[in-house]
């Protein structure tokens, strides 16, 4: 087990390094400068601006500087918001995104697991068909559509929730539901599929033959194996949810991290862009790592020796 963890950890560090390097050079290849404007920037001013961010150095040196700072945990200065560091911007925005993400995840698991379990337990019943149709709808309707509909109903007609922004729990409700519902729908279908497969397996037949109650069979015996596909899905899904959705955060004007993936690239805010890419990669790598370990506990057939 320990050897496996170590091996995976080294792999993660290497992957991270490759991601950082690749992103850094990809970003520099992109045409356009962070300082391009409609009005021509005087060359002497450009010189001062480039010097401030070290962009006047050769590319190799810029890269070395960046890696050096990164190892010290310094993500650099934002170009778009010059009085703030990238660390500061991420520290401000990531917790908000994660709060929405956490709620969305809770919502997704709640509706997804419940619907999936019911559908599996009552396979080919009216329950099954209607729940799975709703979940298909949930997958098909993107937040781009569901978000504005929720705003229209709950903010503009009923005045139950604010139209967007940040400040209290009520600001988080609509974005969390918008973001979580899509994942919930996936989880419902994966749970149903996983459960059905397990329910037909021999050890469940044994449990039934022993005369256990249906509830006990599903919750105690089938669930552990049945949600394996969900766990696999959750690794990358949680990473996606936790770093924020560009669309949801734009629609609800949430001051989170999601929009930077687009805005920082658009503004050529090199360091901010690198910062959010690194945070996302970290989430993705760590969560996949945890999922692999979790597998060992959930599935007795998997052993890390």
């Amino acid at each position, binding site marked *: 087990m320990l050897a496996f963890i170590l091996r995976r950890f080294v792999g993660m560090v290497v992957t991270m390094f490759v991601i950082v390097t690749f992103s850094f050079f990809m970003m520099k290849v992109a*045409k*356009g*400068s*962070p*300082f*391009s*404007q*409609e*009005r*021509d*920037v*005087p*060359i*002497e*001013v*450009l*010189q*001062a*601006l*480039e010097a*401030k961010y070290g962009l*006047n150095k050769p590319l190799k040196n810029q890269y070395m500087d960046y890696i050096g700072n990164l190892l010290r945990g310094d993500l650099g200065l934002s170009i*778009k*918001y*010059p*009085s*703030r560091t990238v660390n500061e*911007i991420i520290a*401000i*925005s990531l917790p908000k995104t994660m709060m929405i993400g956490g709620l969305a995840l809770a919502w997704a698991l709640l509706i997804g697991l419940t619907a999936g379990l019911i559908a599996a337990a009552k396979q080919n019943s009216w329950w099954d068909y209607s729940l799975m149709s709703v979940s298909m709808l949930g997958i098909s309707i993107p937040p781009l559509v569901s978000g*504005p509909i929720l*705003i229209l109903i709950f*903010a*503009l*007609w*009923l*005045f*139950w929730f*604010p*139209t*967007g*922004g*940040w*400040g209290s729990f009520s600001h988080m409700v609509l974005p969390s539901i918008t973001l979580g519902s899509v994942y919930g729908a996936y989880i419902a279908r994966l749970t149903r599929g996983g459960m059905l497969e397990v329910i037909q397996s021999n050890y469940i037949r044994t449990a039934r033959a022993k005369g256990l109650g249906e509830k006990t069979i599903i919750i105690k015996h089938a669930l552990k194996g049945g949600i394996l596909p969900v766990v696999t899905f959750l690794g990358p899904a949680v990473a996606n949810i936790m770093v924020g959705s560009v669309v949801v955060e*734009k*629609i*609800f*004007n949430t*001051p989170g991290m999601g*929009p930077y993936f687009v805005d920082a690239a*658009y*503004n*050529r805010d090199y360091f901010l862009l690198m910062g959010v890419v690194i945070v996302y990669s970290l989430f993705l790598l760590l969560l996949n790592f945890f999922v692999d370990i979790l597998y060992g506990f959930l599935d007795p057939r998997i052993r890390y020796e």
Partner: protein
Amino acid sequence: MKRIIVAALLSLSFVSCTKDSDPNYYGTIKPKHSFDEIWINNREEPQYMDPTLAYGVPDGNLAWNTFYRLVSIDPLTGKPVPELADKWSVTDNGKTYTFHMRKGALWSDGQPITAGDVEYAWKRLMDPATGSQYQSLASNVIENGDAFAQRAIHLSGFEKSTSSSEIQSFLVKHEIPVTKIQARPGTNEVFVFLKSASPEESQAMREKALGLLTQEHPWGEGVTAKITTSDVVEAKAIDDETFQVKLIGPLPYFILLAEFANFAPLPKHVIEKFKAEGKEDQWTKPENVVVSGPFKLKEEQFKQYKIYEKNPNYWNADSVRLKRVKVLMIESETASLNSYKVGETDWIGPHNIPSEQINNVKGFKDYHNDPYAGVYYYIFNTKVKPLDNPKVRQALSLAVDRQKITDFVLSGGQIPHIGIVPDGLGGYQSYKTEMFNPAKAKQLLADAGYPDGKGFPKLKFMYDTKETHRLIIQAVQEMWKQNLGIDIEPSNVEWKVFLDRQKAMDFQIARKGWIGDFLDPFTFLEMLISTSGSNRTGWVSPEYDRLMEASNMESNPEKRFELLGQAEKIAVDDAIFMPIYVYTKTYMLKPYVKGFHPDYQDHHPWQHMWIDLDWKKAK
């Protein structure tokens, strides 16, 4: 349970309909806050909070309402009126301005606002090390400002007169390219401007030139060479109360520049303190900032909101009726319009109404639509065939029915336009000529050798990715096809790439928008001067340059407009730009907000705004 929900639902929607809304208004009509407060949308987190560095509209609006200038513009008459300077005089045939600081005007920390703070701020703006992208607004007009701004080499101590051609030939002989050599007025000193393509090159060239001049002493030992410092710039505090600035010519628009956000006096004592600690960019934080205007930043949440409170030390604080201004940063147009509808904002400015919603909100009384000092153009790259032929450009321009575009494509009240300058800048009337004549366009194209568009190459049109631009070019493409028989290929590119390709002149036809920095035709016509960095057409007209130069030396306002008018005529007749329309600014404003005046530059001082809870009775 179900019944309770339904009941709650009904009662809620019922309450909201009867109390806060009115069929004539799109949004709620009762403020959600106290009567001495206003909630507005700034659309974006500003890039710079420092007035010297302020660049875009989101920066400018905040700086402009909190850091006041020597003069301000009366919102009703549009004329400059005394602000932090209580009077000023113009001497030396319009070239020297002397400002007398208002007695008793204080910074928000209680320190007096002195002429020294003005000098400090203006020189900070011109200093290339500051990195302000509006540097040239000041350095282009103030005597010796450009030498300081462009780090020219300052030569002094000549014993005998040395001609500039002598200096030039010496430097060129040593492979140092020179842009120009400029005498320092009233002395025998000179400034040498070096030519360079990139920041790195410019640095290297300057060092080479300095090294050469200090070692070789080509004009005697007494001649010293150094990089121009700020003390030669003719913007000086004579004493604490008097600030004097000398201009390069009798520029009548100078007083409008002095009102520009970047020209605000700055609290030198505060900035220098932070600079000494190496934290210059922290002086604008709420806990540190010191302002001269009616409102001071109290609290900020990045990308959410900023709260401004009335500054009791502002000299004219008695005239300020609002105690608190909450500025939101809502980026999405839809989210902004939603926030307005439910009363989370009282005023949402331009770019806050999604274009597909314009027709839905148009009929309401809280929808407004004012002209704006900006023009939407297509520009031609005159270096490529067949666009180097004026007849081709004229034909393309004459074949576009601008009225149709403003009426059916945009429908936001935009005004079809043919001039470079929008109408009514300080009384200037832009040059008018025929806008749409398909028959003549066809003839011109035939004269240029392409009868019925035969043999005309398929030109590429470049625009930045945005829905409006796409709709306009589709209409124009169709008009060119119908009226001239030619086809073009529109392609959209991302904004920064768009800017870079324009700069490199890597395009054939491109879209361009230009917003006037101040209300004078110069801010538009300046674009087409051959040396201007904003001239992306490759067009060079010595006559145009001469007229523009002459206009800056002309002290009679009428004669000056005449010169500018002649220049504009040259550019329009030559069809360098193809103007399409004059912008309008659409916005939503609650009926209870008073003291809000339409403005050609969309400047709305919070200072004059107030909330009228009895607005219905007042009507």
